[in-house]
């Protein structure tokens, strides 16, 4: 058996395999192409283990001189119709003598290209490259008596159509979202920025998967040194497979142990466009609708595209509301436990009496109660995400009615705890980006424990720890808490409130864009 398959047995060996492929060219016997068409076909087949989806079609053009053509393509990844009409038909119509002459021609690819009507026709004689190209969906055309193999680009993969975003919805604003297909995704952005300055660079990662990654930015606006850093960081990724953009995120983020996200991930093309215009870059990964945007600041995770689509009073109001909701999601359980167990004096008298009345006869300490309810809610939420659609109603009835109402009526938990937990849960859903909500979800438990141990002092301690951490974080070398610390007055235009767009003439500076002004000073007639 060829050495290819032996190597595929373990992951560690595969990494060696690709790096050692160049010196293995010396071995003539098994991995180099021959002049015999059948042998070449067999070589390619063996290379992939003769899979059932490998479609090989051989046409004997001239039996007497033993001249034949073979076409190899992956079924399901290539366009069958195009192969039939654009490749097989013109070739079979051709006089075989003529064809033979043309093959000997040094620029045979161009000559043949006139006949075969596909986007791109390439000539290769390296088995590994040929196999890789076939795996991408191209069709390999083999001729008798030649080592050259022609590859026609016939890639066509079934893909999902555009659909509405599922995790980042808006009331007013574009309703399209990215799909799993890389080219569709980039086209969605390109359609919105019809400007030659929009640049896309192709990068690769994943030793086995060879996943396509594309880096997008606006030349002249995005900061060059940051782009340089991104390229080098992506090149340094050492991983066998990339299934989602989060794989890349974990490799290229500055602080690998932080609970807070330092890259934005979005499925909305308008978010990508807006960020590109602020001088940020976007990383598209094949196979996922989530695009990474960087460098990110903490404030950005509270900015929904809707803030800009509604009028700015509403935009500002909703944004402040979101900060309040984040505070609630993070602090309320901790504060509740701290005040209820350590600082009774802080509760207004009438409220204290009501609360004390509710807690009469509740068997668990309030910390345990809050922890249990929080955990129950987390379980419910996880079940809600994971469960099959058909049983959704059952879970919500069981969750809401039985766990919530019945637990209170049975006297296992106090009504106030249920209120606190549900308030927290709802507040957590207001975050426009899910990954910052996750941070609040986990830190909530941390603050809850601190609050129960040492009361308000613990809550403050936790707050300082979180704030110190946030201020120390960096995203591609730029401060994460910008523009709050370091404080910049002029940058506050789009932080807690959103000023009207005509007033926002400068680009936000956190990403250090090369161009300071959105449009040139003195008027907008100068279109750049």
């Amino acid at each position, binding site marked *: 058996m060829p050495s290819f398959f032996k190597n595929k047995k373990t992951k560690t060996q595969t990494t060696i395999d690709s790096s050692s492929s160049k010196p293995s060219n010396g071995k003539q016997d098994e991995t180099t192409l021959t002049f015999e068409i059948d042998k070449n076909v067999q070589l390619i087949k063996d290379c992939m283990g003769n899979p059932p989806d490998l479609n090989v079609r051989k046409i004997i053009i001239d039996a007497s001189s033993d001249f034949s053509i073979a076409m190899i393509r992956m079924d399901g990844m290539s366009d069958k119709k195009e192969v039939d009409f654009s490749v097989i038909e013109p070739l079979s119509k051709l006089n075989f003598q003529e064809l033979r002459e043309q093959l000997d021609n040094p620029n045979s690819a161009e000559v043949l290209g006139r006949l075969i009507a596909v986007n791109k026709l390439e000539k290769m004689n390296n088995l590994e490259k040929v196999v890789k190209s076939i795996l991408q969906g191209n069709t390999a055309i083999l001729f008798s008596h030649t080592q050259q193999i022609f590859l026609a680009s016939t890639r066509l993969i079934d893909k999902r159509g555009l659909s509405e975003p599922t995790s980042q919805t808006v009331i007013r604003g574009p309703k399209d979202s990215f799909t799993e297909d890389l080219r569709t995704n980039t086209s969605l952005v390109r359609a919105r920025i019809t400007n030659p300055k929009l640049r896309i660079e192709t990068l690769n990662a994943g030793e086995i998967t060879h996943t396509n990654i594309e880096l997008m930015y606006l030349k002249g606006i995005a900061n060059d040194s940051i782009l340089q850093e991104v390229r080098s960081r992506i090149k340094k990724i050492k991983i066998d497979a990339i299934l989602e953009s989060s794989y890349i995120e974990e490799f290229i983020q500055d602080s690998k142990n932080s609970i807070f996200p330092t890259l934005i991930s979005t499925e909305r093309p308008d978010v990508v466009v807006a960020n590109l215009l602020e001088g940020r870059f976007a990383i598209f990964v094949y196979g996922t609708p989530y695009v990474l945007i960087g460098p990110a600041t903490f404030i950005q995770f509270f900015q929904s595209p809707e803030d800009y689509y509604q009028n700015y009073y509403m935009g500002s109001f909703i944004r402040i509301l979101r900060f309040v909701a984040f505070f609630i999601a993070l602090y309320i359980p901790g504060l509740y436990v701290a005040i209820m167990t350590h600082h009774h*004096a802080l509760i207004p008298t009438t409220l204290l009496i009501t609360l004390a009345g509710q*807690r009469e006869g509740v068997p668990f300490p309030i910390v345990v109660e809050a922890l249990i309810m929080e955990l129950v809610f987390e379980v419910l939420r996880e079940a809600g995400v994971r469960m099959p659609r058909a049983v959704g109603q059952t879970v919500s009835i069981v969750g809401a009615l039985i766990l919530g109402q019945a637990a209170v009526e049975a006297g296992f938990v106090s009504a106030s705890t249920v209120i606190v937990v549900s308030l927290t849960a709802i507040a957590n859903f207001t975050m426009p980006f899910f990954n910052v909500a996750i941070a609040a979800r986990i830190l909530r438990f941390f603050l809850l424990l601190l609050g129960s141990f040492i009361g308000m002092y613990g809550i403050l301690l936790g707050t300082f720890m979180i704030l110190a951490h946030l201020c120390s974080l960096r995203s591609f070398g730029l401060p994460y808490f910008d523009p709050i610390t370091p404080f910049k007055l002029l940058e506050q235009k789009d932080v807690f409130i959103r000023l009207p767009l005509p007033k926002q003439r400068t680009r936000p500076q956190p990403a250090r864009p090369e161009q300071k002004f959105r449009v040139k000073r003195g008027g907008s007639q100068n279109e750049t």
Partner: protein
Amino acid sequence: MKKILLAPMLIMVLCLSGCWDYRELADVTVVTGIAVDKTQNNKYKLTVEGINAQELNNRTAAGYAPSIVYSLSGNSIAELTQKMNIGFSRNLIYSHMRILIISETAAREGITEFIDFLERDREIRDDFRLIISRRTSAAQILKTTYPFQKSSSLKLFKQMDSFRRNWGGNPSVQLNDVVNALTSPAVQPVMEAVTIQGKASKGPSVENMKKVTPDALVVLDSLGIFREGKLIGFLPLNDSRYYVWLRGKLDHTAFSIECRKQNNNFITLRAYNNKSKITGHLEDGKAAFKVKLQLEGFLDSNHCGKDLNKVETYKEYEKLAEKYIEKEMKLSINKVQKKYKIDVYGFGEYLYRNDYKNFKTVEHNWDNVFKNAKVEVDAKVKLRRTALRTKSFISETKAKH
């Protein structure tokens, strides 16, 4: 290595030092009011009202007593507060204490000793009201039930607040007011006094809450006056109102003023924006003060039957009111000067601030100087409107006769 050690150490710090003041809400009884009496053998008797929270919530109330009142005697209040579990099952928390009632007899013997504890204690705040129980024991006040707030302390707290807002008859004395007055040479402390109307013995029962006219009801009675930390007498509520005005705390009030040349016919003036300003000087150990009073108000009843379409009527009424107020205020101040011979109003504070050098010379016997001080009162009344009606229907009924 250091980092690896740091994490378990931090967790240990939390676990070892934390929780010392951890108290479940279900393990505490909220104290809403305490009462201090003196027993025969000169010991303190502390009475505490611990509320039954479930009973105060309308949804969970089952008709039991809304609060438990328990008394204990001992040598110091501070010790007794921690000793209350002789009778109570749960930890008592004093941070929500709304009122402190001192019995008349205890107040006459002096309040300074246990005020120290109140001010010193970590848990007790300074926003509760200090009250004297007149003609009854302090404990009895705490025991008298009332249907609305249910807890007698909460009722009394609310009652005092409402009364001060509407009529201004009580100053709502807080701990800081008393401590400041006790330490100042220029003013003496006061406290509101309450008493029980009806049969005091029927007060401490749920039945008392079920009657249209409760058998026993705690009512505001007067203003207790102190000299050197000891209660020396009481001022009626009407004088109490003038006290509140002079202290600048009068919110709203109402005056009934007799019409000119008409006995038993009154106009009612509802006053707001009440201001008072004291000026004065000290010469040769003799003090003279001028009190400027200002109020705006509207006419709420007009028995005199004067035509309210005319400006003259307003001017006349204003004059009438000014005279009335000047007279009453002067009477009130003179009563304190002659009868109690102490400065509760803080005239001395004005001198203390504005003529410190001179005041220094009379500081040690300021109250003596004050009792002979000449006080002039000048009131300015502005009648702004006449409520909903200009012309009263009374004038028409008279016209028909």
